[in-house]
């Protein structure tokens, strides 16, 4: 079995997959998985992997790896200066690698936040609860449930039959990563008029919010803003109108912890006692993976269910073009 040797782990590199760890919501297991599922899925399609294959999510950059067998890779996501044996590596393209080749990513200055390395055959760590995705908080999945570091060796699966035929195949147009993101949400589950006022919903979608530097795969914290709230308190659940008796949390939910809004990321908690005032739709949630904390702003645009599903189908169609 071939292996990928980690020479430097970079800022935070983890094994991820798509759609992540499903089926265990009742046990409190977060889904984890590629935060930008769009770039991740395009990468798998480019190298001829099945959609379930695991790859690497590289936050910002700094990853250096060595291959010990011939294969095919694709680097997608945030533009990051990358060299394969000293030669510039084209992004969003299926590229051959040979045994002994060394890939080096420098730090991405953005726009965007995360690069994705797809490797034909996928990273073949054991699946935990049906997924190879790393959830560092719970120590689940990936390699020992943690970010990768120097000296790690990742087992790779057998290269699929058609992968070599894909060499040179590229994807485009590539998604644009702005500094100010428009992110589609569906209002709710706890919105107006029962929990928020109509003015609160309007405020939420009225302007871009700075994403706090203190953000990660669990949650993206937004700059403070003050809601009116429809209730004077949380009743039995607590003094603040953001308090409710504990509910399950949807991934991508905009969770009000008191008056602080936190977008629940793929590693976020599965339940809690605060309202979720709006939820990022699946066709837009990939953007969270490219939002740069401390620098980028996010503006929410409310959509209905039909538009949300249309958005998702549009993504699927674009990914199918890469296959």
């Amino acid at each position: 079995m071939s292996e990928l040797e980690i020479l430097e782990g970079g800022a935070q590199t983890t094994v991820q997959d798509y759609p992540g760890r499903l089926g265990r919501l009742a046990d409190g297991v977060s889904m984890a998985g590629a935060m930008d599922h769009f770039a991740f899925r395009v990468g798998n399609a480019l190298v001829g992997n099945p959609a379930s294959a695991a790859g690497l999510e590289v936050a910002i950059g700094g990853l250096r790896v060595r291959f010990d067998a011939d294969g095919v890779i694709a680097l997608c996501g945030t533009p990051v200066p990358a060299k394969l044996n000293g030669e510039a590596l084209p992004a969003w393209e299926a590229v051959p690698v040979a045994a002994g080749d060394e890939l080096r990513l420098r730090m991405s200055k953005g726009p965007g936040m995360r690069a994705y390395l797809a490797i034909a055959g996928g990273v073949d760590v054991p699946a935990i609860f049906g997924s190879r995705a790393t959830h560092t908080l719970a120590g689940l999945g990936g390699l020992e449930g943690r970010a990768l570091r120097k000296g790690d060796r990742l087992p790779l699966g057998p290269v699929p039959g058609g992968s070599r035929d894909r060499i040179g195949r590229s994807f485009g147009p590539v998604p644009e990563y702005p500094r100010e993101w428009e992110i589609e949400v569906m209002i709710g589950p706890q919105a107006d008029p029962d929990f928020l006022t109509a003015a609160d919903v309007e405020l939420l979608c009225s302007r871009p919010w700075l994403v706090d530097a203190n953000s990660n795969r669990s949650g993206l914290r937004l700059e403070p803003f003050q809601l009116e709230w429809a209730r004077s308190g949380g009743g039995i659940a607590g003094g603040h109108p953001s308090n409710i008796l504990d509910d399950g949390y949807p991934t991508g939910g905009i969770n009000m912890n008191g008056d602080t809004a936190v977008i629940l990321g793929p590693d976020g908690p599965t339940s809690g006692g605060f309202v979720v005032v709006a939820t990022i739709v699946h066709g837009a949630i990939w953007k969270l993976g490219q939002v740069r904390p401390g620098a980028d702003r996010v503006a929410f645009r409310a959509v209905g269910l039909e538009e949300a599903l249309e958005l998702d189908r549009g993504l699927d169609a674009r990914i199918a073009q890469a296959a």
Partner: protein
Amino acid sequence: MTTPGRTAAFAGHREAADGRPEVVFRYAGDRFLLVEYGPMEFDLQLNFRVLTVNRRLLERGLDGIVDTGPGLRSNLVRYDPSRIDPSRLIAELNDVEDSVPAGAELELPSRVIHLPIAFDDSRSREAVERYARSVRADAPNAQDGTNIDYVLAYNGLPDRQALYDEVLATEWWNAFTGFFPGLPFMYPLDPRYALFAPKYNPTRTWTAEGAVGLGGPCVAIYPVESPGGYQLFGRTLPIYDLAGRNAAFREDPILIKPGDRVRFHRVEEDELERSFADVREDRYEYRIEEDPFDVERWLEHCEAVREEADANRARREAAAEGTPVP
């Protein structure tokens, strides 16, 4: 009960009828639907309904339902809209509600899991001491290396033994699991022992595996070393083991499921430590009984002890009023 506001988040509504609680369906994005039961009140009967309907729903094996996450009085249904149309999903959920009459939840499949507990253990003290040292020295809940005295003050209990007696006197109902894989959120089935405590502010950065704590009306066991916000009062055995080192975890690394009950029995800390090591070596056998939960008998018991429960609640509320919140 007024009809909930029919704005963007609203996906459907069922009036309370024939003894069944009101149900509200709310969109939570395009891949989740939140089903809420009854008024926002603390009522374990709503949780019984949640778990009963949830079981019936899962038994249908509908294609497109990915999984479900019960809460205290809600269920979060994760679905794949490419496999089940949301409107059909709501129709199916309505159909399941129709098929579960009031009273269907009067006997719930459940297990009693017997766990030893060492009160005021050294690992919990270590967590509190670390907190006072490195996070917040003046926290009223973290004085003298323990949260226990704060829990006593907040609940108007005369001494530690009184707290331990209450914890041991009731079965703890696991209403749902969340926050962390395998972390049970447990509520006392005997209303006389409805302990309450505010959570840490800010939260604690470290908690030992197996620590037992109280936050709000809820008792939790920490499945792994982790941050946390509950007031710690003791420690029990592992409830989560991915490596399956003990037979209890071979089939499923998560021990306590929604609808299970935990009954604690007191041991000294050295015995707990020995059992902890025995769990790892597969020499300890967890005592787990299949024991359906008889809701009617429970309701009768609640009624029989109502006066005492009310008096205890009044005592707690009076004590809480004079106790600083962290």
